[in-house]
């Protein structure tokens, strides 16, 4: 069982605000999922290389050239909450 404190800590790391009664709910649900996941400890993985991806991963390179200027940029800005001189405006952080 993970603790209420841990739930609050994870929520903070994930930038998810929780109400007090939700903390208990998530504590219960996350604990039961994590208990189920414990099953993985039965497997001997001592000699196994991890498989992070279905394809053998290699770097794929292309030229660093800007495409879709203008029109696409204005569509991206259009979706933003608040824009000032083509920059996203956010609340002060310092």
């Amino acid at each position, binding site marked *: 069982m*993970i603790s209420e404190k*841990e*739930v609050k800590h*994870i*929520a*903070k*790391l*994930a*930038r*998810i*605000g*929780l*109400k007090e009664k939700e903390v208990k709910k*998530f504590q219960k*649900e*996350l604990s*039961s*999922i*994590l208990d*189920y*996941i*414990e*099953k*993985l*400890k*039965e*497997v001997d*993985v001592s000699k*196994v*290389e*991890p*498989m*992070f*991806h*279905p*394809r053998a991963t290699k770097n*794929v390179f*292309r030229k660093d050239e800007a495409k*879709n200027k203008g029109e*696409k940029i204005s*569509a*991206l800005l*259009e*979706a*933003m*909450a*608040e824009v000032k001189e083509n920059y*996203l405006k*956010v*609340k*002060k*952080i310092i």
Partner: protein
Amino acid sequence: MELSNLTITKARELILKKEISVFELTKAYLEKIKKEDKKIFAFLTLNEKGALERAREIDEMIFEKREIPVLAGIPCAIKDNILVEGMRCTAGSKILENYFAPYDATVVKKIKEAGAIILGKTNLDEFAMGSSTENSAFFKTKNPLDLERVPGGSSGGSAAAVAADFCLFALGSDTGGSIRQPASFCEIVGLKPTYGTVSRYGLIAFASSLDQIGPLTKTVKDCQIVFEVIKGEDEMDSTSLRFESKNQSFEIKDLKIGVPKEYFVEGMEKEVEEAIKKAIEKYEKMGATILEISLPHTEYALPCYYIIAPSEASANLARYDGLRYGLKKGERSKSENLLEQYFKTRGEKFGPEVRRRIMLGTYALSAGYYEAYYLRAEKVRALIKKDFDEAFKKVDLIFTPTSPTLPFKFGEKIEDPLKMYLSDIFTISVNLAGLPALSFPVGKIGKLPVGLQIIGPAFSEQKIFQTAQVYES
């Protein structure tokens, strides 16, 4: 116009023979949707004006006898986590409620070039996380075969739209079974292609090492037609690759079919098991060799997936800050500072399942747990893949049920996340291993359908299509 017997192949014939115009066909579908989707709730957004305009253009193209592309005039629907330029794209979430796609996903660009008519965007579990479409932030989609039951998920809107004759095909995405399970529940055909054969550019990412876009159709032939259009390497998705089609001809009598013993265990509904066994017998009668095989790590696939998928999701969904994707100033939570704003926006706009998975992934990746959870899961994943590699040394294809149960009722599993997760127990390994798999209907218990899943080695789509088609004919 009678739409229930229409397929892509038949509609194309009618269009080419000029027995119907694309405009008439499109209008017939739109009218049916407007009349009947009040009961099904498959669509989140309709593209009436755009569809009719495009239909006129395609009619003109046919009139002028220009070269007529393969999906010319074929009405379709797109899962609402795939971008269609200028249309709203919500991913079933409040956090993207007012987000309008600034560009076309590569698959959308391809089907548009092939002449398809996009009728609208279909409902899904929020960010494709779910197996019943009950996790949509907007409404629940009903199963057209039984309105008291779920259509499956997460591509439940796409599957219901095809099954209800609201379109001739739909696109969905599959991270752990999200095309195949709803296809099975709605008595249609659904393909999860080999990882990398279809570009993910313009698909709202859930778990990038598992996600693949694929078709949902009424027949296997139609499935193949759509797959041929959407596949291909794309410079906008560096994990995409050229499709190395292994198109050797074969006969059913030369086919070796593996049936994994781990898939026929407790927890599966008896009726489903019987229907699947009957279908397998049919292949045996056609001369195929049926072999019992073992995929020893099957029982670890689900716990493995519920580390890997949420871990990748927690990173992919970090971008939804409430600032960049369509939430206007007034709709955001009022807060003192940026951090508080993140907490409030993400706490209020993400639904419970999405928050649960983001937190689970954050936990698995956090300091002190990475090795015990994430790294261990990626090692178990390698063993699951190895099981398949070993099996495919002995057999050509693997047959399993798509889902352990028949379509279930609303509310039956939604309160217990683990119970819901078990819906995907037969489909998840395929995503972990990056393999292709198809679900197609092989029987019915009352009015509820049973789907058979055919799993093949990487790039064996042609063989899977041919094998499934034999059953249909």
